């Protein structure tokens, strides 16, 4: 059995006005997993992603990261996150945004070279000096993915990473992501409506009304 990176037991998350975004979710992400989280809008995908990434706390149940370390050290070292909405720091250039996790982790000298290399691998090297406001939505998401990968994390959580890309660009982009993660043991959890992306993932979590209704095939089996 692969090592579990994240364990969620009976997770629940209630918001104001009685909105139950998650209900009794049991989940596990193992090292090297490729998980597509699918489901209709409002089914709890983003909420679960945030909890697994340590950005949000469940109102019921527990979440642990036995394979990653203590909570305070999860990000940026072990978990990289790509958010659904544009999430680049507006006052930094693309290169500075991508290299920011390295700077925060205390490796400023390697930030720029690593960032440029990643951008080049995504075909975004010409955007290095631009500011986020000068990018298209698709470009922003790809840059955000580069930022999520720059620290070579053990777990990458991506929320609709190809949502603003055309099919050809999305395929190229996702190929690059999978290629970079190949053999690293990094787990990838992607919340997506894109069937082409979901089909390329080994495991599919189906969310419905806040519940994880199915996991197929199971990660161990994959």
């Amino acid at each position, binding site marked *: 059995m692969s090592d579990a990176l994240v364990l969620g037991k009976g997770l629940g998350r209630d918001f104001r006005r009685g909105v139950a975004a998650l209900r009794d979710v049991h989940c596990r992400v193992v090292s090297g997993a490729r998980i597509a989280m699918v489901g209709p809008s409002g089914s709890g995908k983003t909420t679960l992603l945030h909890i697994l990434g340590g950005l949000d706390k469940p109102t019921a149940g527990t979440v642990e990261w036995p394979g990653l370390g203590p909570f305070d050290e999860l990000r940026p070292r072990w978990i990289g996150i790509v958010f659904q909405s544009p999430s680049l720091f507006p006052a*930094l250039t693309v290169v500075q945004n991508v290299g920011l996790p390295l700077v925060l982790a205390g490796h400023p000298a390697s930030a720029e070279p690593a960032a440029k290399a990643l951008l080049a691998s995504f075909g975004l090297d010409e955007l290095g000096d631009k500011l986020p406001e000068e990018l298209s939505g698709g470009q922003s998401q790809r840059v955000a993915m580069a930022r999520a990968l720059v620290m070579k994390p053990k777990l990458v959580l991506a929320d609709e990473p190809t949502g603003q890309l055309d099919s050809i660009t999305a395929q190229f982009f996702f190929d690059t992501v999978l290629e970079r993660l190949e053999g690293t043991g990094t787990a990838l959890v992607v919340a997506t409506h894109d069937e082409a992306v979901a089909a390329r993932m080994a495991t599919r979590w189906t969310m419905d009304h806040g519940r994880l209704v199915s996991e197929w095939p199971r990660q161990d089996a994959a």
Partner: protein
Amino acid sequence: MMMLLWLRGVLTRRFPRVLGAAAGVAVTVALLTSMVLFLANASASMTARAVSAVPVDWQVQVISGADPEAIGKAIAEAAPIKAAHRVRYADAAGFEALAGGTTQTTGPGQVIALDEGYSKDFPAEIRLLSGSADGVLVAQQTAANLHVRPGDKVSIKRIGLPAVEVTIAGVVDLPDADSLFQAVGLPAQAAPQAPPDNVLVLPWRDWQQLFSPQAQQRPDTVRLQWHARLAHKALPSDPVQAHLSVTGAARNLEARTAGQALVADNLGSRLAAVREDALYASVLFLFLGLPGAALAIALTYAVTSSGGQRRRMEQALLRVRGATTRTILSLSAVEAAVSAIAGIAFGMGAALFFNPVSAPDRYATLRDPALLLVALLGLLLGFAAFLLPAWRDAHWITVGAAQHADSRARAPLWQRLWLDLLLLAGAGLFFWLSASTGYKIVLAPEGVAATSVDYKAFIAPALLWVGMTLLVMRLSGMMIAHNSGLLRVILTPVAGPLTPIVSAALSRQSERLTIGIAMTALAVSFAASTAIFNATYNAQARVDAELTNGSDVTIFGTSDVPAGAHLAALTALTDALAVEPMQHRFAYVGADLQDLYGIDPGRIERATTLSDAYFSGTSAAGVLGQLAATPDGVLVSEETVQDFQLQQGDTINLRLLDARDHQYHPVAFRFIGVAREFPTAPKDSFLVANAAYVARMTGSDASEYVLMRAKGNPAELARQVASVLALYPALKVSDIGQAAHLIGSSLTAVDLRGLTRIELGFSVLMAAAAAGLMLALGFAERRRAFAILDAIGARPPQLAAFVWSEGLVIIVGGLVFGLISGTLTAWMLVKLLTGVFDPPPQALSVPWLYLAIMLGLVVASVAAAVRSARPSPGLVAEQLRDL
């Protein structure tokens, strides 16, 4: 319906933005309301103070042949009168007395009589110095001239009649002799008449008996006046209105008594002088108050605009969804209305709470139209800050552009035109123009009703202020936008290893930071300049009071009753720090009688302060040293130097009264310098010499005055002195507090404490708001950016580095530029308003404590703003969803 929904959404989701805008409006409204209330109160107190200082309001001279009782009736009908008495005047050819075996004779004089009850209703006109008030009274100077005391006889040389002899009962002082003996009916531009040197006051019946025959023979040599006091409570509280009321009533009286009486309107003249004081107050209000109001308005606009980018994006979304310009403006108006109305209510309420208006004026003041204007201005400000940008965006900017902040915008037009340097050059030019006129801002020549104000002088500080603000924006913009080494040096203490990335981030937010620095610098500059000016003004007001009073406590005596005779008893008082005697004599310089002060130059500074500004061309220490080294040295006024064309070292003969033979004899002095001011000296020419020399040459070492320094409270020392000297009513005890209160006709009478207290309080508030509130609102608009940092793994200290770096840039830039600008502005204000100070200050007084408090509050407000920027645990995910 839609507007209500919008409003609910704004209040729910954007409450800090609405609150910030309301706070901005509240500050402006509160400041302006406080100023309006202060001016109303100050005007009222100014009238009351001026009115109480006038001994006799109206002097109505009855023309020969007219019916005095009819005139008296006309007076009572012209205005509400509290008291009216008759005074008789008679010219005398001279007085003569036998003293010490010699006959003393004076030149022409006046013999007056006051009717019954006069002294009770006009107590300031006559003060008993020695002897009894019942009987014939001789004026102090006349007694000195004739060498008479109570009990001595004086012969009055009547005009056209034989002389008559009277016995002196008492010696009096006539403090208001200038007015008492004024020539009623002279044109306004005529030169003031000097009061007679020789005066006797006879009982009413005695005067009638002795001078009725003279009145029949020579009616041109006798006069009758009515002296009236108006009912002051009936006067309007505003000095300008009071002046109109009194002068109107005086003209009415003149009309009623045309051809039968002449009216001297002392009260009207006094109110005219107060009107000039009110003019000075408005001048200072322009210099100090208007910039505060302008700053508050600018700050309000900046605060309400700090949420502009978000509003712009929201409005762009509405436009995408088909909202018309009218709809967008209506929605903005709703938000503006809520902010403005809340701000006005809170601002006015706070102002009224902290500036209570005393009854019975309360309701009149609250109905002041100026308050309504303030409320309208608050409304206008709130609407302008919201609607103008919305209208501009709807007409000039595409939706696409509105959805993005343009952080690479080109330099604004004013920068490309170098407007900041042009304005500073203009400030220098106008300042030089004012300097070339000797800084004569307000002209109010004595004896001339018309006044003028050089309003151009205001241009210099206004241009300086605006020019400095723009220069601050240029310099701070350059430092930040170019990610300069100086920026990194400033950030290193808080950003540490993150300095490069933090400075890079800040360099792309230079426009926002520059505005924050400029607003903070503007507020700090205003606070600093107001505080320094106020401190300098208060210091000079004390100097002026000390000049008038002489010291903390001064005992004023006469040659007959010198205060110096009680030196031992005064020195023994526990609260007395230093006690020094000073001679006060009279000396003829040519035909001009001047005050002569005899001092011990080695000791005088123990009891009083002598400023370098009191002397021309040399320091106080230098002058005193020269006087000590020149026993027969004398300091004279500039006018005397001009009149006699004196050169340093010239001999000047002064005629002094010799105590041995009671005659005036010439005494040689050597001219060693010019004295412009001296403690207790009048505004007219005066002389300062060595007391020892004067004593030797006049045969009298009496010291008429005594100057005293207090260990603690001067008023307490004055009470002790008054107690010791209770048996000597001729000795007048005055403390510096009374002098400060009594300084009435110069600008020091205008109580700027109220205005500057308002301004200094609001300055601190505005400085804190400019720094902290704008920073906090900016952080609130960028919560998501900080949530992103948290989400990608920034530790709390690293998040703090980002937010504190912004705060530090605001603090350092705002305080450094603000203090430099404020000091420069204060220096300019003090120079331009030199006429306000009497004497002019030698240096600026810096209120270190106030500045320290202000700096502390600015730092505290920034700290509070920084704290508000930290993403709350558990809310990061929610803030990430916030589009």
